Structure formats: C-alpha cells, structure tokens
C-alpha cells in the first residue's frame, strides 16, 4: 500500500509567507534533507497544494544519491514546482510526472507520462 498524502492548504494560500523559501525550509509533501543517502521515494500519491510535492535540499549536510520514482501527482498544484532539487544536492534521480526545478548537481530526470498524457 502506498503513502497517500493530501496537502489541504486552502486555495489562495501564499506559501512564500508561510514557508519562507523552500531552499531554507519549505512546504512540501515529502522532503529529504541533510546528509541523507540512498533514500527512495516511490509510488506515493500526493494531492492538494504546496510549494512542491517532492523536495530535496541541504540542511547541515547535502543529500546524495536519492531517488523520486513514479510518484503520482495528478491532483497536486505546486506554487513552485512539482519536484524541487536544491543547491549542492548530488545525484538525484527523478523518474515520473511533473515539473522540476533543479539546482542540484548530477540530477537525472526521466520523464514518464501520467495517465492521459501524451508522450509526444
């Protein structure tokens, strides 16, 4: 069974005010921080609103070799991007749907069409 995450921020929420910038600390469905390695975020369903559905960023150490794979973001509205990769984050694999804001090093992005999307 997958994790099912519903971010219930009301429509019109200004995430910058609540969350500062996601690069310092953020608002996200699932967030990886610090010297975390080898973490896999796989096949979760994230709905609702936030700055990002998935994020990985520095916090007293830089994340390395983590992966976001085949997460379902069909009903998610990001104010920044569906997936955020912060400065100095190393070797993140992103396979799946959604927009990506990438400031990392060695990020690999493998687009996968969502249901009803064309691969063209």
């Amino acid at each position: 069974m997958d994790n099912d995450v519903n971010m219930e921020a009301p429509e019109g929420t200004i995430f910058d005010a609540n969350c500062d910038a996601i690069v310092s600390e953020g608002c996200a469905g699932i967030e990886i921080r610090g010297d975390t390695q080898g973490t896999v975020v796989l096949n979760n369903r994230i709905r609702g609103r936030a700055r990002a559905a998935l994020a990985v960023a520095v916090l007293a150490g830089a994340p390395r070799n983590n992966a976001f794979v085949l997460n379902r973001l069909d009903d998610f509205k990001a104010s920044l991007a569906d997936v955020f990769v912060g400065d100095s984050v190393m070797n993140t694999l992103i396979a799946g749907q959604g927009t990506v804001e990438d400031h990392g090093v060695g990020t690999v992005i493998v687009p996968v069409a969502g249901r009803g999307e064309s691969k063209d």
Partner: protein
Amino acid sequence: MTGKFIWRFIAALASVLVWAASAAAQTVVVGTGNPDTDIPAVQAAVDQGGEVILKGHFSFERPPTVPTFDRNLATVRVSKAVAISGTRGEDRDMTSIEGGATPFYVEAPGAGVTIKGLRFIRPTGLAVSVYAVSGLVIASNKIERVEPGSSGIFINTSVGLPIPDQPGHPENISGTLLVINNHIDLAGGTAQDATIGILIYSVGVPGAEVEAYVSGNTIRNFTERSISLRRVVGRAYIEGNVITTGTIAGGANGTQAIFVAGLGPYLIAAQLG
C-alpha cells in the same frame, strides 16, 4: 504491499514479539475514571512488567509527576519490558485513557515495550514519548481531541534538534521499531504550534542499528509534519500511511507531510523490490 515487503515486515514483527511470548506475568487493570486510582494502578502494573491488559475507561487527569529526559513531566513511566494492551472494539468499546500530560513515557534501556489498542483522548504534550528501548511496538492506537499544540508519538533521544556533533543518546534505542496502524488526529493546533504526528529522532548507533517501520498510520490535522525522521542509524520504511494536513501551517519550518533528514537510508513507499 509486495510479497517481499510483507515477509520482511513479518520477520521484523516476529523478532520484536519474541520477548513478549516469554513474558509470564499478566496483569489486568480495570479503569475507574478516577485519576487518583487509575494512575497508581497503571503505574504499579507497568512496574511489574510482563503483560498488562487495560480495560474500560481510565482518567489521567492529574498533574504529571514523572520527569522526562527533556525536563518535561509525564504521567506513567515505563521502565522495564512490558506489553500494554487495550481491549479491541469501536471507539465506545475500546480501552480509553482520558487526559494526562504524556500518558506514557518509556525509558526502558535494553527492554522491549509494546503499547497497543489504546484510545488516547485529550492528551497534553504527547501521547507517547520513548527515550530508551530495545524493540518497540506502538500499534493500533487512537490519539484524538488532543489539547491544542500537542503532538502524537515521539521516539527521541535528543534535547533539541539532533546534529552530528550533538546527537543526544542514540545508543538508547535499538532493534526493530514498529509504529503501525495508529490513528492520530491533531486538530486544534494553531499557527503558533508545530505539531507532529510521529517523530523518530536520533536512534541507533553502528553495531546497534534500528529497523523502523512507520506503516499503515492515518494522520490528520498536523500543523508542521505528519512523519518526521532525523538521524536514524539503520533503515526506515515509511509505507502505506494516509496523511492529511490541516488548513493551518504552524511552526517556523513550514509544513511537510513526510520529512526525513540525515543518515538512513529511508524507503518512503511500499513497492520496492
């Protein structure tokens, strides 16, 4: 869940419950609704160790007296191997504990502890705080109508956020940690509150790692994080949880449904392998 995960999970559960099978003592405590009776009765039963079955409605509505590692106060201290269970059933039939500042505080070095099948109503601070344990099951509990600003289940050895130079006492917690099938509703938190459903900070050391499962929980209306893990030495699996934020974001760190930081690795999903 994949077959591989199920077998891994069953193996972990079995290893945690081995000690419970060998526990001889069984104590049944029936709640009276009077905290002056209920708290000493539960404390006395828990102090004996073994298996403690709680039945009926308990009141913990009394000022707490048990000091915790982080200079707070709790209601009942768990200090040795014990399995505390409530009776099953719907809300009305389920064993309930009403009120209380951190109803259970676990400081049981080297011992296995289970807390399952309890309905915590209006706890203050936390429902369960764990500082020292070797093998832990927190399962099938309900935490609801918390006092504003209160959180759910903390497994934590650090005063303040753990960092590499100041990790707290991660050696206090080892073995398999199962936090499964709990229902946690933290409604009532304000924008000034940083409420968290399940927190695991600074646990395990090389040679005495943890294997943590946070699975099948339903967590609602938190203001900061539903599940927050930092500096776990070992492996952590966060799978099959149903998470819904509140409409209020609290704390200084924004809102994350699932947050992991430092060490690991973590698997946040269910269907790996």
